[in-house]
């Protein structure tokens, strides 16, 4: 057996690590690149603002865009306040006891439940039992429960990064705990909470399985009137046109993927950049 000298084996090892890392990152860029290249020719004003035509082989995707936006808006409006309050409980009030351990374990497990199981749950509870039917609200509630652990975890990190001394300074003035949280802790945790929220919005915009049987419709050529309407949704639409419809014009599929990707990646990038920016100019 040949023994390499340590310096050389280090160089080889580091080179391999670098190659592997590139191997993971490059496909990400390739995926984005391919979709942009093949899809941008489909992006016209009519495509973004029109109704689908010819069994979805033509026309636009407006109802899918509006559907996704409505579901996601409702979901984040439900999950953000609940998640932030839960994070406040865990970070500011919870004692180190059995209850807290069970809560934390529940959060971990909630985060691990497969998205399609959330779909089943949403179907059973919101669509059937509560009789919301397949609707924006049923989908939004399902997604909001799915996203709850993510919001709780990121908000908690944000709260935790606010120095404990800020709380003491406020409490020592006779300010109550809640007032301290509302006026000192939350404002300083806000950038972190918001980046977490934006990342969550990005994530749920692209989720398909949870809305499959709770909100999404194959084809609804009109815009929703209320939260109890069934809607088209971008990710579901992409699934349908890429698997279920024969002779689909290629550029429409890519165009739909591009719109979804742009929506999701813009939000993710915003979140990443905001976080970077706030980390740099953090005041304490």
């Amino acid at each position, binding site marked *: 057996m040949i023994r390499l000298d340590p310096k050389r084996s280090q160089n080889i090892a580091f080179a*391999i690590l670098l190659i592997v890392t590139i191997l993971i990152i490059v496909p990400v860029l390739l995926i984005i690149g391919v979709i942009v290249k093949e899809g941008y020719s489909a992006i016209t004003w009519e495509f973004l603002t029109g109704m689908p035509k010819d069994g979805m082989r033509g026309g636009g995707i407006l109802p899918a865009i509006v559907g996704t936006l409505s579901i996601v808006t409702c979901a984040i409006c439900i999950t953000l306040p609940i998640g932030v309050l839960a994070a406040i409980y865990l970070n500011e009030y919870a004692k180190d006891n059995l209850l807290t351990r069970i809560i934390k374990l529940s959060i971990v497990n909630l985060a*691990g439940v497969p998205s*399609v199981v959330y779909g089943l*749950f949403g179907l059973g509870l919101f669509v059937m039992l509560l009789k919301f039917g397949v609707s924006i609200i049923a989908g939004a509630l399902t997604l909001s429960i799915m996203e709850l652990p993510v919001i709780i975890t990121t908000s908690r990190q944000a709260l935790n990064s606010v120095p404990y001394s800020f709380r003491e300074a406020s409490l020592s003035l006779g300010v*109550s705990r809640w007032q301290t949280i509302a006026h000192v802790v939350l404002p300083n945790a806000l950038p972190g909470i918001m980046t977490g929220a934006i990342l969550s919005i990005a994530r749920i915009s692209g*989720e398909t399985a949870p809305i499959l049987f709770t909100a999404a419709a194959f084809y609804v050529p009109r815009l929703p009137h209320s939260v109890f309407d069934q809607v088209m949704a971008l990710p579901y639409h992409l699934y349908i046109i890429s698997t279920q419809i024969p002779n689909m014009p290629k550029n429409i599929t890519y165009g739909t993927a591009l719109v979804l990707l742009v929506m999701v990646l813009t939000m993710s990038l915003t979140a990443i950049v905001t976080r970077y920016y706030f980390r740099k100019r953090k005041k304490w």
Partner: protein
Amino acid sequence: MRKGFDKFIEKAIFACGLLAIVFVALIFIFLLIEGGSFFKEFSFLSFLSGKYWYPTSTPAQFGILALIAGSFVVTLGATVVAVPLGVMAALYIAEVAPAGIKDILKSGVELLAAIPSVVIGFIGMVTIVPLIRTTFNLSTGLSAFSGALMLAFMAMPTIVSISEDAIRAVPWAYKEGALALGATKWQTMYRIVIPAALPGIIAAVMLGIGRVIGETMAVMMITGNAAAIPQSLFDPVRTMTATIAAEMGETVKESSHYHALFAIGLVLFIITFTINFIADTYLRKVKK
């Protein structure tokens, strides 16, 4: 009045804190009730060990062994590919990459996490699937192998970011000791850093596996959806998640088929619950 408001909001905070427990319990109860009514008509054992999933034929057959096998093959394949690559990338990002590049790489991994699974499924259909069909001369590229590759890719963000956290959490003093003895940075990494970070890496792997088992859209689009026990990696398979997603839309509500799908959901829930529980135990070790 202010005091009253404080009291009220603190109650609300406590209630929200409890919600996570409530939801986990609710999900479990729902799956148990809806899935449970399936077992009133069919035996649990034949459900798990039955080879045939013919939910719409008469008489219907509800054996999920082929589906379990499908999930298992795809997950195993994805894990074998994803774990070494993911851990290596995590090592590079945490220990080797220069500071400026580190941020870019991490953002890259985060972007990958953000790409919707249906988009990855679509890209897989138009790239990997034909590639595999021609390379291995198969009748269809929609196979367990294609699915495993795509899923390995999708599990990457989880494995990389959690392993990276674990690696960075190794105290500097450990490394300093080895470096002071004249070990190279690489020797220090594989003799000191990796063993010390192992619990965290195991947790990362478990969570990655959890993510792969639960993945739905991409596998449904890529693996070919044949509910038969695969003889090779290149056979089409159908996973548990894909079965639920593909069939729930067409079932008659409250039929045996409907309840059978909930029963599959229950099996999935129990599997992922166990995996996450194990991962959490390891993560707890890291924190100590």
